[in-house]
């Protein structure tokens, strides 16, 4: 079976005063129907840019994107319109992603109006149905976003994304702006919707506990590059890349005494403008050697588990030595 979405060597560079900023560099992944791909990494690693580039909200610099087996790297205007009906996005901040001058029903109805071909009554019925689906009370339809709390606003965002019945949704940190109690509600809603509608998600986040809960596959990004890619369980049980390890060690553990060792990264994040070839994490990596200054390639170390670190085997042995000692 063809994957729903396939991205090959995608690159997105931005021109800046100091040179080319490599926001997304050579990223490849596939996403099957009904699955969730988690994309994690620290702020500024290009994970949101990756999501936006896939949706053509930003034009890719290089690489290829296939959706349902079709090359959509350079879509025509008409193709792009069709594409957007199948690919939608849920934004991070429900405070700024909703037009403050549109009521709830106006916001949800807008994609339907733009698509056209529906009578007004049908659109209203559809809007009510969508509000019901995402758990918004009908009495809120004439409310303005500023009158609602964050959780409800994000529900509007989800309803807007669902209006065109897409197959694939990029979730750009959809819960990071919400209270923890509401985060769980919204995530459960998204999981239910996935089950009912067979949606595929690309879930961009820096919240690792969320990503573990929701993802089938996880992509760990550092400065625009994929450093590790594995099924969720595999990644959490057998973390290989030193950066992923540091990242995972940051998940808070609700246990006392907390014996988990927190790996603290030292040094500054390398500039993404005109980066040198070689491992971009090397400057902060405690295992870095000469070999790390050569370009790293993503290799499959076990089925489905990819890693871009030339020293992962030695690091693994080193760890085992430590454990034996």
């Amino acid at each position, binding site marked *: 079976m063809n994957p729903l979405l396939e991205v090959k060597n995608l690159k997105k560079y931005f021109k800046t005063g100091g040179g080319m900023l490599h926001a997304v560099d050579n990223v490849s992944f596939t996403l099957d129907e009904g699955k969730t791909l988690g994309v994690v990494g620290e702020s500024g690693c290009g994970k949101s840019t990756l999501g936006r580039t896939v949706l053509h909200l930003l034009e890719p610099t290089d690489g290829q994107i296939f959706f349902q087996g079709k090359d959509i790297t350079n879509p025509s205007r008409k193709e792009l319109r069709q594409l957007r009906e199948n690919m939608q996005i849920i*934004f991070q901040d429900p405070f700024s992603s909703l037009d403050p001058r549109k009521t709830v029903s106006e916001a949800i109805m807008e*994609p339907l109006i733009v*698509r056209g071909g529906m009578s007004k009554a049908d659109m209203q019925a559809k809007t009510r149905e969508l509000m019901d689906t995402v758990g918004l009370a009908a009495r809120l339809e004439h409310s303005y976003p500023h009158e609602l709390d964050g959780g409800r606003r994000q529900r509007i965002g989800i309803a807007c994304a669902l209006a065109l019945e897409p197959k694939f949704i990029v979730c750009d940190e959809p819960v990071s702006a919400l209270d923890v109690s509401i985060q769980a509600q919204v995530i459960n809603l998204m999981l239910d919707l996935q089950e009912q509608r067979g949606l595929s998600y690309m879930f961009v986040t820096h919240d690792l506990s969320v990503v573990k809960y929701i993802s089938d596959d996880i992509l760990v990004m550092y400065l625009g590059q994929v450093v590790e890619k594995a099924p969720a369980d595999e990644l959490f049980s057998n973390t290989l890349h030193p950066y992923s390890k540091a990242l995972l060690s940051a998940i808070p553990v609700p246990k006392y005494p907390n014996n988990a060792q927190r790996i603290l990264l030292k040094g500054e994040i390398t500039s993404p403008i005109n980066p040198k070839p070689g491992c971009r994490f090397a400057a902060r990596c405690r295992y870095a050697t000469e070999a790390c200054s050569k370009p790293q390639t993503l290799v499959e170390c076990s089925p489905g588990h990819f890693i871009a670190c030339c020293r992962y085997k030695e690091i693994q042995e080193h760890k085992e030595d430590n454990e034996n000692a």
Partner: protein
Amino acid sequence: MSTKKTKKKSQWHDIWRQLKKNKLAVISLFVLIALILIAILAPVLAPYSYKTQDVVNANAGSSAEHLLGTDKLGRDILSRLLYGSRASLIMGFSAIAIGAIIGIAIGAISGYFGGWTDNIIMRLLDIYQAIPMLLLCIALAAVLGPSLRNAIIALGVGMVPGYARMMRASVMTVRGKEFVESAKSKNCSTVRIILKHIIPNAIGPMIVQITMGVGSCILSGAALSFIGLGVQAPTAEWGAMISDARASLRQYPTQALYPGLCVMISVLACNLLGDGLRDALDPRLRN
């Protein structure tokens, strides 16, 4: 259909409810409505025609016959004030309409597209703004001939750069918001994004400026008439009346005072209403 209608009605109802809280704005609104009514009903309200001369009673003070006295040609000042509101209001509203519509369109395009479009438009406006407005009006009047219509065109065109600049700044802050990107991802066309999302959100600060602009247009219109480039005699206009009274300002100050007060009251009303509207129109300031 019916639900839409009730909703729209309630939106205006909402704005009115908010505006009502601001006493000064409500008073200003009534003053403006009264001015408009006076302008429309001038022939009914005025005791004399604006050009009837009563030379025997020239430069008369207040009396039962001429409530506010007469000017140097013996024309009834009250009647001329009432008729004068026509020219002043037409000038104020039409000039602002020309200036604001063109300015908002240019500013929205410039601010939304940015880059080269923005650069070219802004540099052109810079050049344009380097020409003093009054000189521009004089030049236009010289070319087109002095008349009310040409004064309106000159004033309107003169307002464009200011509004374009303001709109551009406002649009630029809105353009970066995520809801614009969201609209793009929902397949909205550029025109729809600008008309439905950018302009409604960017126009808030403009409303105030536009309402206040009506005031300043009345003021500039009076100034143009004062220097003889606007309304031509014998048509009554407040600025022209002040100009006429100038020669005998020491002997008969009231001849200039009354039209001056009229200008002041209408400008003040516009400004205060603008302030009130800004608060009422912003859904985020409502509660």
